[in-house]
């Protein structure tokens, strides 16, 4: 296969330095980017940088995996914005297919119910009424702010239980990428707005339902209340985040037997309560 341009095209394409930098990324470093670095990359992809800054951006992309991935995402979005939109008829078909069947069959369903089924429905309604009456105090407690997900902040003086072998990076080798399922922690990306709100609520000892989507979903978890202990070091890291919209944080499920030494930080676990430690990702 001949890779030369076709005859008549003496001038090669303008060299795309952004893509060349991504292609020469070594994958050795995955340090989280600062807000300045993100701006630098955004400006580079948009063609707004002076040559000296372009060199800096290229060097960052060659070294840092997250920088290369960000540039790839920006390239993808830029190319998408120049591409034709999805035809409307196709959008209509797909969204129609994704919509669950409407209640148009409801009438037929009601009519198809027999006497025994009506008796069952009446019984279920009576049971639901009893549950509502019995569950009202619980509901009132939830509505008054004492929700099932409580947060509290603790300073951690001895951080050795939080040491993870997978965080060690040897020079000249890529960072170890363990299977998340085999690790005793999860690294998750959380909007900094939510983290700020959590820290404020933790200081006041309040409830923070906005964190619930980020907690692992385990069987029966919905029945249990949850407590999230927040590492005070997270506050310092958040203050140094310089307006970034999202931040990687580390979450330990303290019910996991592998986190026995981490539980020394939190103390004994109350029965019937999920408990997590939210800390900084090194």
């Amino acid at each position, binding site marked *: 296969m001949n890779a030369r*341009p076709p005859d008549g095209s003496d001038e090669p394409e303008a060299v795309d330095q952004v*893509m060349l930098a991504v292609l020469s990324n070594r994958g050795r470093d995955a340090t989280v980017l600062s807000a300045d670095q993100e701006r630098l990359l955004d400006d580079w992809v948009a063609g707004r940088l002076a040559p000296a800054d372009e060199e800096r951006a290229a060097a960052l992309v060659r070294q840092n995996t997250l920088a*290369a991935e960000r540039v*790839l*995402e920006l390239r993808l979005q830029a190319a998408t914005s120049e591409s034709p939109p999805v*035809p409307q008829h196709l959008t209509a078909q*797909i969204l129609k297919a*994704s919509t669950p069947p409407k209640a148009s069959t409801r009438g037929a369903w009601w009519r198809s119910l027999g006497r025994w089924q009506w008796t069952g429905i009446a019984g279920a309604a009576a049971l639901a009424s009893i549950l509502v009456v019995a569950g009202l105090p619980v509901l009132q407690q939830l509505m008054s702010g004492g929700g099932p997900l409580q947060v509290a902040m603790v300073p951690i003086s001895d951080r050795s239980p939080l040491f993870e072998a997978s965080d060690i990076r040897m020079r000249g080798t890529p960072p170890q990428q363990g299977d998340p399922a085999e690790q005793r922690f999860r690294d998750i990306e959380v909007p900094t707005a939510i983290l700020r709100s959590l820290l404020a609520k933790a200081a006041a000892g309040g409830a923070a339902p*906005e964190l619930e989507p*980020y907690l692992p979903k385990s069987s029966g978890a919905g029945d249990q209340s949850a407590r999230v202990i927040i590492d005070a070091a997270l506050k310092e890291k958040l203050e140094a985040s310089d307006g970034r919209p999202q931040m990687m944080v580390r979450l330990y499920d303290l019910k996991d037997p592998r986190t026995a030494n981490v539980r020394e930080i939190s103390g004994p676990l109350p029965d019937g309560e999920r408990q997590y430690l939210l800390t900084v990702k090194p």
Partner: protein
Amino acid sequence: MAKSPVPPTELSDVELVDNVLRGAPGAIDAFYHRHSRLIYHCIRSRTGGQDVDDIFQAFFERLLKSGFRALQLWQRGSSLPVYLSSVIRNFVTDFHRSKRLREEAVGGTLELEPLSGGEAETITATTHLKELRHIGIRAWAVLEARDRRLVCDRLHRDLDNETIANRMKLSMGTLRTAMSRAQARYLVQVRQLAPEFFPDRA
């Protein structure tokens, strides 16, 4: 305490995907409106315009039928658009492979079922750059010998122009021209293998 719903346009990709996976009302619409154009672009750039609508529709049918399994496998914290581009790359390859093997029209999800195997869905976010490096190696491999040497010295050995000029016994001016052309030819090959990252020429 009443929680005011966050408008879909302000949700992060993590929240958006979590909403889709737990079946929140309007979540599929929100996901579609944010990412459909990118998905369409990736398919279109890979197929050159042929079968785009069929593949696009099949992709969403597959997502719905599998309970958004591809989204369950997305590694939080990595780029969702880049991950989707990898998933689509494999989906399109499988679509065409199946079409070639059957030598008949592909009509819908029933016929696509056999090609919805693990390949498209076992991609993790950490493999994006590795995949791109493989694409780079394939692109490099089809270059002529001198171009291969120039690209390797510049991109992988990080040598400066003076050292490369000495190694190849070229003047600096000749080297600059040769290097520029070698890199451009290299990128032409990369573009053929990963067109979604380049602007549309049409």
